[in-house]
């Protein structure tokens, strides 16, 4: 399934990819638009990447026939290493998918997935009240 990117995701230059295991990976190429302090990716850009991959992974898990509104409740981002001037990748794992709440963990890395630059714990509400 192709994820349709939001205007925000397009502004950020996100690219949808697949890991060798078939899992959704979103890549954020380095550009001046994601730069924070000189030489490093902005923490806010990393959080935006982590959130985007979390919502896209959730959307994929829900499938074509189940399209609730995904409402972010909170995001806790932890930064482990400075993300340098290269492409950053992110993927998400749904820890629990309930009727109304989903708990998701996302990680971001650059050259080595075993050395994440940031991770996020993301809780969302699934709103099926519309329509």
């Amino acid at each position, binding site marked *: 399934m192709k994820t349709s990117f*939001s205007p*925000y995701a397009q502004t950020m230059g996100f690219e949808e990819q697949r890991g060798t295991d078939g899992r959704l990976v979103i890549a954020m190429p380095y550009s001046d638009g*994601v*730069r924070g*302090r000189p030489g490093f990716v902005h923490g*806010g850009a990393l*959080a*935006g990447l982590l959130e985007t991959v979390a919502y896209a992974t959730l959307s994929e898990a829900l499938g074509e026939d189940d399209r609730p509104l995904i409402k972010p409740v*909170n995001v*806790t981002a932890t930064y482990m290493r400075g993300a340098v001037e290269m492409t950053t990748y992110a993927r998400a794992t749904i820890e629990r998918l309930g009727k109304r709440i989903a708990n998701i963990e996302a990680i971001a890395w650059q050259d080595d997935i075993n050395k994440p630059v940031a991770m996020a714990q993301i809780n969302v509400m699934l709103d099926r009240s519309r329509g």
Partner: protein
Amino acid sequence: MNEFPPEFDPARLIQTMSKNGHNKLIGTRYHGHGEGWCELALPYSETLVTDTATGILASGPIFTLMDMATSLSIWLKTGTFQPQATLDLRIDYLRPARPGNTVIGHGECYHVTKSIAFIRGHAHDGDPEKPIAHVAGTYFFTASA
């Protein structure tokens, strides 16, 4: 209380930062500051929307706004320009920002140790009494390690 040398004018610093990098991309602007606090503005932009059907801003730019406002509040608390990095930042999204409205992010540094700065903040879209988000987090001073 804290005296900044003239070249360390926070308003000018923020205006300079807003002309570069990620802050330029999302359009953050200076809004106000005082001792230990800083406010930035994020004007509404269709390029930052999460869903074209609703016109609601994505949460990512609001996260960036709060990361910026809280990190600047640390320099305004300590009165020194120490290099720092975000350790963690938690954001609670109370409700979506109203499409078309500028979001104001208020960041406050309420405690610093030799190595860690503790921050909190909130964002609103016009009425400070009705916040759209709250944040809490920590930064560490990278030169102190």
